[in-house]
């Protein structure tokens, strides 16, 4: 029974139809959670004892950083599924995850840099986490650049999937080595989000934002995947139907 569902999931048309119902709810959830979380974090959470008001950037920096890293694994897993089960749809999700992940990594880097200025006096500090984030950014850019280099879509898909998998194996090694490198050169590490005890009044808005970001990620990933499916399958009759604005009937899985 589960296999049937899994194989139907591989059908672009089935995916497009089924996700149509989910999209408005995901969008609503994202807007509500991010909106509420931002207002809460910006205006209602108390000021930090050491950093003052600049710490409020945490409410966008941490969710973006979490998702940037999680997004890489989503991209790699989609690539692996595409390679193993030869599922076109999986490759489309991988490509969407690449773009999305790069944007989130950029957000994490930018907000991290801007946070650094009032906290440590400079925009760029080569600490372990920001350096690892930068390398993650290069990993994403590599996958995106590779995807544009091939003339045939299927070859590009497979090549990117392989690169994403190679990167996945390396990410823990890179993170650990950068961590070690940093402790070597800077004995006093500043860990502003790895506080063992974060005050609940600061934690709940953060949690709201993290969940909100996850919802937004899901919505955006599905939206990008849907568009790419339409682009790739433009010759099929069901796509022509969709482009004409007609709703799809419960037909065979395209």
């Amino acid at each position, binding site marked *: 029974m589960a296999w049937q569902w899994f194989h139907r999931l591989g059908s672009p048309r089935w995916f497009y139809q089924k996700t149509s119902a989910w999209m408005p709810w995901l969008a609503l959830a994202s807007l509500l959670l991010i909106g509420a979380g*931002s207002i809460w974090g*910006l*205006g*209602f*959470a*108390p*000021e930090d004892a050491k950093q*003052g*008001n*600049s710490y*409020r*950037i945490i409410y*966008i*920096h941490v969710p*973006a950083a979490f998702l940037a890293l999680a997004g890489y694994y989503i991209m790699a897993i989609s690539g692996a599924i595409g390679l193993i089960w030869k599922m076109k749809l999986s490759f489309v999700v991988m490509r969407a995850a690449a*773009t*999305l992940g790069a*944007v989130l990594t*950029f*957000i994490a880097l*930018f*907000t991290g840099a*801007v*946070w650094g*200025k*009032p906290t440590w006096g400079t925009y760029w500090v080569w600490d372990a986490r920001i350096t690892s984030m930068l390398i993650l950014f290069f990993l994403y850019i590599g996958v995106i650049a590779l995807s544009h280099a091939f003339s045939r879509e299927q070859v590009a898909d497979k090549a990117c999937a392989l690169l994403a998998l190679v990167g996945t194996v390396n990410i823990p090694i890179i993170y650990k080595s950068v961590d070690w490198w940093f402790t070597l050169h800077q004995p006093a590490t500043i860990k502003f989000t790895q506080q063992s005890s974060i005050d609940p*009044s600061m934690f709940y808005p953060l949690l709201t934002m993290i969940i909100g970001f996850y919802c*937004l990620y899901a*919505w*955006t990933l599905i*939206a*990008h995947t*849907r*568009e*790419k499916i*339409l*682009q790739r399958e*433009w010759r099929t009759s069901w796509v*022509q139907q969709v*482009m004409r604005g007609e709703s799809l009937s419960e037909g065979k899985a395209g």
Partner: protein
Amino acid sequence: MQFQFDSLTAFLYMDGHGIFVWAAYGVTFAALAAVALYPRLQRRRLQRELERQRRIESRRRSVQASRARETEPA
């Protein structure tokens, strides 16, 4: 839970950190909005591309039809 600032101005200024906080939030939301709205742009492009294809196709068919009429015995 209470609002932490005395006035809207204080909210924007944030004891001097305002520019950093608002710049960070601003760029973040701009980037998120851009990536969220990008599919719309793709849809419009696809629409235009399909329109173009349809025009080319109908033009080709009408040229073929007129050629067929020409070679037809009267």
